[in-house]
């Protein structure tokens, strides 16, 4: 198991929600959902794509796109070194893996964010790959699904990260104009610039249960208003209640729900 899935290495894992000790295979066989309390553990992007495409099969797209460290950014560590570390640990995909395959035998592009790669943060690579994904869908009249899992824009690429929000939203505007379906799937966590752009722009917005979804992070809000936040604030069910989501869907039903919904639009 790779780090960043909410599940430590080893044969046994502990559910971060109910504390149950689970045999690793038990969780994996259950799509990484706790069999005791239904807590959804975080998936890697490749686990996500495999869980959604027919026969777990898909072709990875645009995986050579790499960041160039445009600002020469250095905090406690150089961004260029950070990138190398994550590329070694997680893979070359940066914080987004794009796959083409089929859902219910219909060709579909799914882009899944990789939280393990710098908190799923969106820099130029994520923006570029999403724009390429939307353009492929425009070219071939495919539907697009984006599975968000991100802390927001990547600070290390400064303003260029912010501009990816505009770039991807503009590409989605084109899809809308050409009557091509785009379904946004929001998973834990989806915050910041990712929520304030493509994650909220689905023709349908569908979330997994209990996911943290918001514009500002809970800590920022608490510091601003100086009060504790109500229980369940910014969770999927809260957003559903406030009209921001079409559906909250258990991971076991997600693939079938996507197939049904895409079927309405095909």
């Amino acid at each position, binding site marked *: 198991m790779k780090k960043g899935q909410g599940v430590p290495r080893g044969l046994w894992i502990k559910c971060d929600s109910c504390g149950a000790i689970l045999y690793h295979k038990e969780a994996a066989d259950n799509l990484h959902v706790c069999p005791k309390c239904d807590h959804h553990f975080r998936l890697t992007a490749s686990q996500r794509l495999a869980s959604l495409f027919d026969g777990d099969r898909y072709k990875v797209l645009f995986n050579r796109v790499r960041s160039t460290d445009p600002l020469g950014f250095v905090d406690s560590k150089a961004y260029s070194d950070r990138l190398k570390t994550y590329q070694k640990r997680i893979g070359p995909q940066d914080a987004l893996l794009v796959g083409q395959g089929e859902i219910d035998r219909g060709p579909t592009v799914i882009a899944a964010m990789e939280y393990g790669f710098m908190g799923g943060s969106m820099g130029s690579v994520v923006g570029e790959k999403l724009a390429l994904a939307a353009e492929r869908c425009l070219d071939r009249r495919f539907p697009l699904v984006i599975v968000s899992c991100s802390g927001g824009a990547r600070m290390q690429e400064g303003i260029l990260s*912010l*501009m990816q*929000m505009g770039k991807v939203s503009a590409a989605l505007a084109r899809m809308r104009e050409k009557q091509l379906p785009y379904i946004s799937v929001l998973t834990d966590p989806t915050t910041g610039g990712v929520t304030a752009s493509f994650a909220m722009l689905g023709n349908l917005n569908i979330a997994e249960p209990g996911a943290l979804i918001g514009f500002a992070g809970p800590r920022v809000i608490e510091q*601003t208003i100086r009060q504790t936040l109500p229980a369940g604030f910014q969770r999927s069910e809260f957003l559903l209640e406030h009209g921001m989501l079409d559906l909250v869907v258990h991971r076991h039903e997600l693939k079938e729900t996507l197939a049904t919904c895409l079927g309405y639009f095909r």
Partner: protein
Amino acid sequence: MATIVIPFLEPIENLRDKILELEMDTRKGIDNSSELDKTRREHEETVNRIFSSLTRWQRCLLARHPDRPYSLAYIHDIFTDFTEFHGDRRFGDDPAIVAGFARFGGEPVAVVGHQKGRDTAEKVRRNFGMPRPEGYRKAQRIMKLAAQFKRPIISFIDTPGAYPGIDAEERGQAEAIADNLLVMAGLPVPIIVVVTGEGGSGGALGLGIGDRILMAEHAIYSVISPEGCAAILWKDPARTEEAAEALHLTSPDLQQLGVIDEVLPEPFGGAHMDPGGMASTISDAISRHLKQLKKVRPDVLVARRYKKFRAMGTSTDR
């Protein structure tokens, strides 16, 4: 004058005070012309010295200068017949964003912009220029109205960021901003964006998609505030200046990164020293760009706008 003293501007302000005093003496009939000349020269040299080597953090302080002109001041200077329109028709009216129609060189245009408050009461009323969802939705309503009647849109950016509060989240802050990005990308009329002060992240971008992005010389535009960045990446709020340096958030930075089209030079000593002068520079720039954009067919305009944002960012596939 400023109630909050910005340390690096103090020598300039002291010399200005001295000039004012000497001028007063002159009016009383005291002959001090040589000292006045000397002080004026010293003032000019000091301004030049300080402004020729501004750090990025100093530009942040200028962008947030308490006397810096805000959107409504520019709107009144640049346009005629401005009528402010209110409300998002969904929930309420957000005073942190102003929107309306006006005339520019005689021709009707739509105007939207963030609005900060000047005194304490207005600051609170306008929520320090931090919009809630209804502000973005009001702006979108006015921009769509502009598209319906084929009027260009001028957008003024000046916000620390979208408001991070419980009510804003409940009413879909993220959705409100996201939808503006999508809608602005497709409006078939010219959109000119002018970053006049603080371009605070998504809260700024929510009014920031356009055919031309212009930026006042000492304005800033950033993915996160230097304070926020220091707290997260350095885990130390004291390292804000370092964060400001690393973020590349000034107008020359953004021009070099291909995010903005033009830097609008500020009056001597900054926009707050001569708001009218800054307004006239902005007005000239709007006029120039509007002239070009009005010649472009609407579908070509939208296609070029897409290309413009599509090209932002740097990556390699080799």
